[in-house]
C-alpha cells in the first residue's frame, strides 16, 4: 500500500486586495499525493495552480484547510519539524533568468542550501557541488562561472542542482520548462525523470502544457478558477475526460500531427475567463459551458467519485 506523502484537506488561499475585493486564488482544494508519484497540476492562467504550489511549499499560509505531510499537520510542527519540512520540500521555478543571483558563482548557487544550514565541511560541500553538476549533466569546469554565461536550459539545470543539494524528498516544479526551447524542454523533463528514479522523489508538476504533463505525470488534477474540477490517473483522464472544461481543454491543444488536426472538429470554448474578483455561485465554469443548466448554480463543492479512481466536480454527475 503506497503511503500518502502529502494530503491537502479543504485548502483555500485568499488574497485580500481591499475590503470588498478578495481573490480566492485557491478554493477548497483537497488531494493526495503518494510517495514517489508525480502529480500533474494543469490549468490556464489564473486557475490557482502556482498559488497552490506556493501554499504547499510554505511561501503562503493557507487561509483555511490542512496540509498534512507524512502524517503530520504542518501547522502543528515544532521548530525542528518546520525546518525539516522546509528542507524536504523544494521548489523549482519557471523563469531561469530570475531564479539565479547574477552575482553568485555556480558553486555558491548550488551549495547555498548547504551553506545556509552548515552541512558538511568546505571540502565536502565542494565535492557535493561537483557531484551535482555531474548529476544534472553540466561540466565540472562550470563551477566558477556566472549565470549570465549559461543558456536557459543550462540555468534550469543549475536550479535543479541547487534544489537537490539538501536532499529533498518532494519537489514542486512550477512551470519548469515553459520558458525553454522545445528541444531543451525534453532534456529537462528526461533529467527530472531520471532524478526521480534515482532518488525516489515525489513531484508536483505544475504546467499549462498538457502534453508534457501527460508525459511525466502519474496522476493529474485539472484546475479552473481555484478549484480542482477533475482528478484522475493520467490514462483515465486523457482517454476518458469527463468534465466539459477538461474536454474542451484537450480539444484546444493542437497536436503535432496534421492529419489528426485536419480531422478534428475545431470546436472552441466560447467566452473568456471571468474576473477572479466576481463571486460566482455554484459552478465557476457555468458561464462558458455548453452543458450548463439551472442546476449548475447549486453545484455541490465536492469531487464526485465516478469510479476507476476518477473524480469530477460537475452537476452532470450529481445524482
Amino acid at each position: 500500500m503506497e503511503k500518502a506523502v502529502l494530503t491537502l484537506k479543504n485548502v483555500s488561499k485568499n488574497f485580500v486586495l481591499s475590503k470588498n475585493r478578495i481573490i480566492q486564488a485557491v478554493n477548497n482544494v483537497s488531494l493526495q499525493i503518494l510517495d514517489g508519484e508525480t502529480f500533474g497540476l494543469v490549468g490556464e492562467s489564473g486557475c490557482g495552480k502556482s498559488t497552490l504550489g506556493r501554499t504547499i511549499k510554505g511561501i503562503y499560509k493557507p487561509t483555511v484547510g490542512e496540509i498534512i505531510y507524512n502524517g503530520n499537520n504542518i501547522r502543528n510542527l515544532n521548530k525542528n519539524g518546520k525546518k525539516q519540512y522546509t528542507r524536504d520540500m523544494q521548489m523549482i521555478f519557471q523563469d531561469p533568468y530570475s531564479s539565479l543571483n547574477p552575482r553568485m558563482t555556480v558553486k555558491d548557487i548550488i551549495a547555498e542550501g548547504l551553506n545556509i544550514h552548515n552541512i558538511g565541511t568546505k571540502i565536502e560541500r565542494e565535492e557535493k557541488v561537483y557531484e551535482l553538476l555531474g548529476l544534472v549533466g553540466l561540466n565540472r569546469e562550470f563551477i566558477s562561472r556566472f549565470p549570465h554565461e549559461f543558456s536557459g536550459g543550462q540555468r534550469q539545470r543549475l536550479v535543479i542542482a541547487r534544489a537537490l543539494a539538501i536532499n529533498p524528498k518532494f519537489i514542486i516544479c512550477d512551470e519548469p520548462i515553459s520558458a525553454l526551447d522545445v528541444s531543451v524542454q525534453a532534456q529537462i523533463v528526461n533529467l527530472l525523470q531520471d532524478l526521480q528514479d534515482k532518488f525516489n522523489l515525489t513531484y508536483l508538476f505544475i504546467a499549462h502544457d498538457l502534453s508534457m504533463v501527460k508525459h511525466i505525470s502519474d496522476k493529474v488534477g485539472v484546475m479552473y478558477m481555484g478549484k480542482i474540477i477533475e482528478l484522475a490517473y493520467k490514462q483515465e483522464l486523457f482517454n476518458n475526460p469527463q468534465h466539459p472544461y477538461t474536454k474542451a481543454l484537450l480539444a484546444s491543444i493542437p497536436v503535432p500531427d496534421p492529419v489528426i488536426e485536419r480531422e478534428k472538429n475545431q470546436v472552441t470554448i466560447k467566452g473568456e475567463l471571468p474576473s477572479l474578483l466576481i463571486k460566482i455561485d455554484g459552478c465557476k465554469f457555468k458561464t462558458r459551458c455548453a452543458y450548463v443548466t439551472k442546476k449548475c448554480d447549486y453545484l455541490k463543492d465536492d469531487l464526485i467519485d465516478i469510479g476507476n479512481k476518477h473524480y469530477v466536480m460537475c452537476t452532470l454527475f450529481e445524482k
Partner: protein
Amino acid sequence: MNKNNKILEVKNLTISFHTFVGEVQAVRDVGFHVNEGEVLAIVGESGSGKSVSTQAILGLTPKPAGVIKSGEIIFEGKDLLKLNDNEFSKIRGNKITTIFQDPMTSLNPTMKIGSQIREIIHQHNNVTKSKSYEKTIELLKLTGITDPHIRIGQYPHQFSGGMLQRAMIAMAMANSPKVLIADEPTTALDVTIQAQIFNLFRKLSKEFNTSIILITHDLGVVASIAHRVVVLYGGKVIEQGETDQIYYNPRHPYTKGLLSAMPSLAIEGQNRLKTIDGTPPFLLNVPKGCTFAKRCEYAMEICVQREPDTYAFDEGSVSCWLYHSQAKDQLKNFQSKETEMYGKSSSYS
C-alpha cells in the same frame, strides 16, 4: 489560395548584429516565399533567426547594431530593402501588416482601441469619419469581439489578453493586407484562447485571401494551421516544405529530432522523450560547416568542414549533406529510424 502566385519572396537575406563582443551572424543567406492565400509557418528555436528575418520584411531591423549585409525581399515587383521611408510607410500597416506577441507594447495605452484602428484606416485611405467608424465596427465583429459598439470606445487596459490580440488582428486586417506577419501571436495566451485566435486566422486566410506568415516554435500550432513550413536553425533555412511532408517525412535530422522531442497527446506510452543533445548555437563565432553538425546523430566529416548545399525536391528543399549523391549510406541510416512520435494514436474526444 493560389499555390503558384508568390506574393512575397525573400532571397539570400543575410543580417548581422555588431555587438561589443563581435559580429553575431543572426541570419545567414535565408530564402523563402509565401504564396497567395496560404499560411506559411516559420519554425525555429531561440537564436534561429526567425524574428530577425521577418523584422527585415517590414524594415524593423534595429539600427545601428543590425546590418543587412545582402539580400532582396520582393513584394509587388519591388525590393523592399531598397525602399525609402516614405515608400515603406505606404506598405507597412497597409499591404503588409504585423502583430506581435505582446499586444500591450504595440498598442497605445492612452488611446481608445477604436481610435487606433481608425487611425490606421485613415492613414492609407481617403474616407469619411463615419465610414471608418463603420469599418471599425465591422472589423471588431469580424475578429469576434462582442459588443463592438461598446468596445470601440474602450482603452486597451479594459481588454483581456485574448481580446487585445483580437483587436490587434482587427487593426492588422483594417486595410485588407496581402500579407500578415504574426510573430508568436499566442505564446502569451492560454491554450483555449489560442484555439480561438487560430480559428480566426483560418477564417481570415480563407475569406480575404490574406497570406499569413506565422512565426512560432509550437509544432502543434503549425500542424493545425500551416500549409507550408520553413524550418530555421542557426540563422539558416535547413528545410522547407509542405506541412504533411515535414511531419510525416522530415528530411533534416533537426526537424526529425524536434518532432521526436515533443510529447504528444496523441501518443500512448512514451517513456522517455528522445532529445537532441546540446543547445542551439550562439552565432558569434560561427563554426565551419553546418551549425547543427555537433548535435546531429548522422553527421559526417564533411558536415564540419563545409556548409551543406541546398537540395530541391518537387515541393520544398533541404540543406543537408545527407542528400548528396555520395551520402547514400548515412541517408539510409537516417531514413530507417522512424520519427519517434509515431506510436499508437490514442482516442480522445
